[in-house]
């Protein structure tokens, strides 16, 4: 059976990939690029953790440390987790899930990947040219980002290109879902992963341009000194923070919504039950996307804002917990009385629910005004967003990777090894990040290069955790690449799932389906 790996489009070697407009090839291009950047970001993180193993200076300077946390943030956020699940697995699975042959604009899809790579190259170039790697933190707050001599302008331009890539991907997915659903694929027969991509795409489309203009203004400010953010010229630095978070809070939902969608597809398959509350989950994705626009102020409770605005932002922040809670309860309800199979995708999924719940609930601690003042700018925040971003999004990403691996590559991953490193990662993750909650509560500020001896125990445990977690991640990559050739052959539908992507061959042919599928039932109807 000929599959899409055989169809090079007439280009030799690697050009058959980087010039391909096939959504499956583009999805794998993203996956490979993101893996690379993830490993780079992880190395930077490990280096920081090693420096923090004990109080005092060890092997890097404070300026290097500032560059490290900036780059760790920029790489992990803009190069890994924002393209994340949608650009890689979403690209591959979306047309398959709705019974289409490709996305609506295949050439635009390829262009998005090129924008992504161009942005990555520009960001990485900024490390080695000009005044050295940026040291502002990934948030690029003025006035420091305007005054620092490091290479902020170039890095910011790279992020601008990455934003263009993300916007165009969102545009493409929206049009695809509106126009290319197979006959019978009504809105409420769509898999919930597709629903989550739909909600995400709207956020990508409507939030990213705001960061684009904000970053352009930062470049203009550095080059021409216009003064929008400079009090000496009548400007207001807080305005930058507002503009930045008007994008960057919705961006949090660009990261987490597809992860929620992926676990929603996995849970029914491994519980052998129809999803509980299909419509509630679909609409809660939309609700999160809408509410996500209105809560940016909670990043700025201590920046200077009227009490009234702070109360409104706090209230709205609590409201976001409602649709998130709806999802969690529906996932758990779907598992209730199910015939649960603890294969690796399900193990990652269940740990996702656990870790995401911790991350979400500690978010409420920060959403409340009084406690926010206490934990703002501390390790508590660092722990919180690693619990939602890593424990949430990345664990779900790994779950989805194990789930869809047989479809993408036609082979199974080594299941025994997968369960082993799942356990190592789960232990390592909590050892690494849980002590940070306590450190933050005790007052350890984030982004500090050194600390008082009383924080030593927490930092030491955390650093040991980082080694355990990294071991698990490396084992996963080993399994991933080894199984490409050594894995046992997978059938078309090894997990007995009911969604459309499993009804075609593994790996799928270039046209995805032999003939256009007719959809007659919902996505979680198991026989």
């Amino acid at each position, binding site marked *: 059976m000929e599959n899409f790996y055989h169809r090079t489009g007439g280009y030799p070697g690697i050009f058959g990939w980087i010039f391909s407009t096939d959504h499956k090839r583009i999805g794998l291009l993203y996956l490979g690029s993101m893996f690379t950047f993830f490993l780079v970001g992880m190395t930077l993180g490990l280096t920081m953790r090693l420096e923090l193993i004990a109080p005092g200076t060890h092997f890097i300077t404070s300026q290097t440390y500032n560059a490290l946390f900036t780059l760790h943030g920029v790489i992990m956020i803009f190069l890994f987790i924002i393209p994340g699940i949608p650009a890689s697995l979403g690209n591959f699975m979306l047309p398959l899930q709705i019974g289409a042959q490709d996305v609506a*604009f295949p050439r635009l899809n390829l262009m998005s990947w090129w924008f992504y790579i161009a942005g990555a190259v520009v960001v990485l170039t900024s490390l080695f040219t000009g005044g050295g790697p940026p040291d502002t933190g990934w948030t690029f707050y003025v006035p420091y980002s305007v005054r620092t001599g490091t290479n902020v302008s170039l890095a910011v331009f790279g992020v601008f290109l990455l934003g263009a890539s993300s916007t165009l991907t969102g545009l*493409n997915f*929206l049009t695809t879902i509106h126009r290319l659903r197979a006959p019978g694929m009504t809105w409420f027969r769509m898999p919930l992963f597709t629903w989550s991509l739909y909600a995400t795409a709207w956020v990508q489309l409507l939030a990213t*341009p705001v960061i*684009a203009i904000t970053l352009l203004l930062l470049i*203009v400010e550095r080059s021409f*000194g216009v*003064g*929008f953010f400079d009090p000496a010229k009548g400007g207001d630095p807080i305005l930058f923070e507002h503009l930045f978070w008007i994008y960057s809070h919705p961006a949090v939902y660009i990261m987490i919504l597809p992860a929620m969608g992926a676990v929603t597809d996995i849970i029914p398959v491994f519980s052998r039950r129809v999803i509980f509350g299909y419509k509630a989950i679909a609409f809660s994705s939309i609700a999160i996307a809408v509410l996500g626009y209105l809560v940016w102020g909670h990043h700025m409770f201590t920046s200077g804002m009227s009490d009234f605005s702070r109360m409104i932002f706090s209230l709205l922040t609590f409201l976001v917990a409602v649709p998130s809670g709806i999802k969690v309860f529906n996932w758990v309800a779907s598992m209730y009385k199910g015939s649960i199979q603890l294969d690796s995708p399900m193990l990652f999924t269940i740990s996702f629910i656990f870790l995401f719940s911790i991350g979400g609930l500690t978010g409420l601690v920060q959403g409340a005004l009084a406690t926010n003042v206490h934990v703002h700018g501390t390790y508590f925040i660092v722990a919180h967003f690693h619990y939602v971003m890593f424990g949430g999004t990345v664990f779900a990403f790994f779950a989805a990777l194990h789930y869809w691996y047989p479809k993408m590559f036609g082979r199974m991953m080594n299941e025994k090894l997968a369960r082993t490193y799942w356990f190592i990662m789960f232990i390592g993750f909590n050892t690494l990040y849980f002590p940070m909650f306590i450190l933050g509560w005790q007052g350890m500020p984030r982004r500090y290069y050194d600390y008082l001896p009383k924080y030593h125990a927490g930092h030491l445990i955390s650093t040991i955790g980082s080694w355990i977690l990294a071991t698990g991640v490396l084992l996963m990559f080993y399994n991933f690449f080894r199984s490409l050739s050594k894995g046992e052959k997978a059938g078309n539908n090894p997990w007995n799932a009911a969604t459309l992507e499993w009804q075609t061959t593994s790996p799928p042919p270039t046209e995805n389906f032999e003939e256009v599928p007719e959809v007659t039932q919902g996505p979680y109807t198991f026989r």
Partner: protein
Amino acid sequence: MSEKHLQNEHIDYTGSKLGMWFFLFTEILLFGGLFLIYAVYRAQYAQEFHNTAHGLSTILGAVNTIILLTSSLTMALSIVALRQGKKNSSIVFQAITLLFGLAFLVNKYFEWSGHIHEGLYPNAPELLSRSHGEILFYGLYYVMTGLHGIHVVIGMIAIAAMLWLTVRGNVSGENFNKLENAGLYWHLVDIIWIYLFPLFYLIT
């Protein structure tokens, strides 16, 4: 391949329109950030904005408004002409639209050079000696009309490409959605100017 190829040849007219409208949303939000900054500083420095706007030439601004509005008309006429099968008149209308775009930029160039000549440009000693409201007014003026100017140039490149495709016959009475999308973009450029004109020239 053949079947997929055929499907690609078949153009989804509605899909292409939908994608273009989504793209226009992103453009509006891109400018939206600037309109937000304008609103904040206009509220903060209302009187100074009012006084500073005297320094802009309403006549030049009005001429540019007329130029852009007329160019939107010629753009629309070129699409109508193509759909009626009048290829040549469509080409003429597209060329006129391009010329109007060029006229707008030339006008803008003289306007900007006039201000720069007076020492009224970002970070200039003359401008920095003036009030905060005036500094921010001119900052917004350069950034917003500058970004708009870049969009005019992009729109002209798109129309020039359409002109070429129309001459070659790739864009035709049966296959005109590319030209329509370029037209939509040009109207967006026009509409943004419709807002910039009163916000900078007519607030005195």
